[in-house]
């Protein structure tokens, strides 16, 4: 236990401080964990490797967790991976259960984070060897599985799938990127758009545009009245949080944490796919999933435990293959190279002290995150009490900052906010569905690369079935997911017919 001598008070202070700053970054719509790590990266020069890592891992954990706050309270995912948190979090907040939703999310987060840290600690090299069994084919099937949630998520399956396909289409705009091994040609646009859309629309501005700006447009159309927020607060008194929410949710919690860890560990897939996949599986496997999407705590549990489990998962390939599992760990690599430390398959055996230090920081940051969030929630939840005429301009301003800063200062990303704000408004007006569209957008470009690259090397569609036993298992899951959502939709249709009061969608 030689590494213990390397730990000092300032080490823990930095990890805690990191978690705190990370939470603030994550909680501001448009600011992400990646950004938090990137802006603090230069500090690691001065701090030295171990203290620098404490700070950065704190930021990472805090940033991923902080994303739940605007997702629940404002319906804007603070980070792309908290997208599924909005599905149940915001409906709960509207029912006056914002505080309760946040508490559920925090607990799910810390458990997800700790489970993934444990998995990282115990099985990193082993899992890294497993993760390289996943080639383009298997990765495509994982994306397909995540996409299959669209069917069960949409209130009208046909419209939902159509919206999802539009999302995929939107994600293909731009070049077929060379950095993914594409040929670098642009498509789906006119020549004059090329200077702006060369790299396509970037994810974060699209997300905050479609959630943040379009919400404001919808509200402005209704005259921005303040009554609703008072109503919310009053209702908030009625529903108290208790740990009994977690009763019978252990399977969900553990399953989602493992899914998060696992998806995080696949290079390239990472990020938002984790929470989407966990959400899909809860929706498919749980017996009482019909309320999901309308404000069910189990949706929050799935989403938040999975997205925090990402942290440990994404560190697996980083530390045992030298390959980042998601965008934040890609920045984290910089911290190592700045110090002249290589990450690769021999990192853990050759840097045992650093490895233990990182684990300590990771676990500690999770606890700090938990205590800070759990006790600050009461105050954070009051954001909904801020009068809208104060809150909304500030949201727009923060969206601008986030959009502009995500790619280190590109003005078109700010315009993307408006484009997708208006698009989000129109979509909701004509009865298309936002959630499937955005999931299509998030996963679309990966689906393309993995699909095309699989075919390019194999030359036959049969590769998707015959590649490996893993592929077969994934197919079974996909089929189960699709069958399930069909059954579910038939059931709900039958129910609706019985009630015969529900309005059909205006499309």
């Amino acid at each position: 236990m030689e590494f213990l001598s390397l730990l000092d008070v300032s080490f823990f202070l930095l990890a805690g401080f990191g978690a705190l700053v990370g939470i603030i970054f994550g909680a501001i719509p448009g600011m992400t964990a990646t950004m938090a790590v990137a802006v603090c990266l230069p500090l690691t020069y001065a701090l030295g490797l171990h203290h620098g890592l404490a700070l950065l891992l704190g930021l990472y954990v805090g940033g991923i967790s902080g994303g739940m706050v605007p997702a629940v309270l404002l319906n804007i995912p603070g980070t792309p991976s908290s997208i599924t948190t909005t599905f149940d979090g915001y409906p709960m907040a509207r029912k006056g259960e914002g505080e309760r939703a946040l508490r559920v999310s925090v607990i799910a987060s810390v458990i997800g984070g700790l489970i993934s840290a444990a998995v990282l600690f115990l099985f990193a090299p082993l899992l890294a060897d497993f993760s390289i069994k996943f080639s383009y084919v298997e990765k495509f099937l994982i994306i397909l599985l995540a996409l299959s949630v669209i069917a069960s998520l949409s209130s009208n399956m046909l419209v939902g799938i159509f919206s999802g396909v539009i999302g995929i289409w939107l994600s293909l705009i731009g070049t077929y990127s060379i950095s993914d091994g594409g040929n670098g040609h642009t498509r789906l646009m006119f020549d004059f758009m090329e200077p702006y859309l060369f790299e396509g629309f970037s994810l974060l501005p699209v997300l905050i545009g479609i959630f943040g700006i379009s919400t404001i447009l919808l509200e402005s159309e209704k005259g921005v009245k303040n009554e609703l927020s008072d109503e919310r607060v009053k209702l908030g008194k009625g529903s108290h949080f208790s740990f009994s929410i977690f009763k019978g949710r252990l399977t969900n919690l553990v399953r989602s944490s493992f899914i998060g860890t696992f998806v995080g560990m696949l290079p390239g897939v990472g990020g938002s796919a984790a929470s989407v996949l966990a959400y899909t599986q809860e929706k498919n496997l749980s017996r009482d999933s019909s309320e999901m999407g309308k404000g069910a705590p189990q949706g929050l549990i799935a989403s938040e435990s999975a997205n925090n489990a990402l942290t440990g998962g994404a560190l697996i390939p980083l530390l045992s293959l030298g390959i980042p599992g998601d965008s934040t760990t890609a920045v984290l690599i910089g911290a190592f190279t700045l110090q002249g430390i290589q990450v690769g398959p021999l990192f853990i055996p050759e840097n045992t002290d650093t490895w233990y230090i990182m684990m300590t920081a990771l676990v500690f940051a999770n606890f700090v995150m938990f205590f800070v969030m759990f006790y600050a929630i009461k105050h954070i939840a009051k954001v909904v009490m801020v009068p809208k005429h104060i809150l909304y301009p500030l949201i727009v301003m923060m969206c601008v900052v986030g959009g502009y800063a995500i790619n280190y200062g590109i003005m078109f990303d700010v315009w993307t906010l408006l484009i997708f704000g208006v698009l989000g408004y129109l979509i909701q007006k004509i009865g298309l569905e936002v959630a499937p569209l955005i999931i299509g957008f998030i996963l679309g470009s990966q689906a393309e690369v993995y699909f095309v690259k699989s075919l390019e090397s194999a030359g036959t569609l049969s590769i998707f079935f015959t590649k490996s036993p893993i592929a077969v298992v994934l197919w079974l899951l996909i089929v189960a997911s699709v069958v399930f959502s069909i059954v579910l939709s038939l059931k709900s249709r039958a129910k609706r017919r019985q009630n015969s009061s529900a309005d059909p969608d205006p499309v």
Partner: protein
Amino acid sequence: MESGLTSLLSVSIDFETSHLFFPRIIHWIMAVLFVIILATKTIPFLAAVKRGERTLPILGESMDGFRFFGTLALIVAYFYLMAVVGNLFPYTGYGFLFVSMVFVLLMSLMYMHEWTKKGVIIVVINAIVAPSLVWFILAKLFKITLP
């Protein structure tokens, strides 16, 4: 039989045109779904509109036109002027700082239903303090490039 299936499944992708391969598939799926939705949803819906049972989205709804179009106009002006002003003071973030102050102030005033003295003061203070704070933390402390 076997070889028939194999040739049916075989696909060869030319690298030079591979950027169009996946979009083409998506276009087909989109077109088919669109036609189905048109037939099963949109046409019955339009018929209902004609019979007066339903109203068209956006066009047929009542809306607060002043606040809606005001919001759109303000956002467009905000985004545009931010870049213009920012260009006068390259990479200082002043474009963001000053234009945000004006934007936050105007949008707050537009959304405020009753202009009380206290309300306006809060709005003005907020419009000055919030952008300054954001600018100071992000542009100065964290050295994030702002317009």
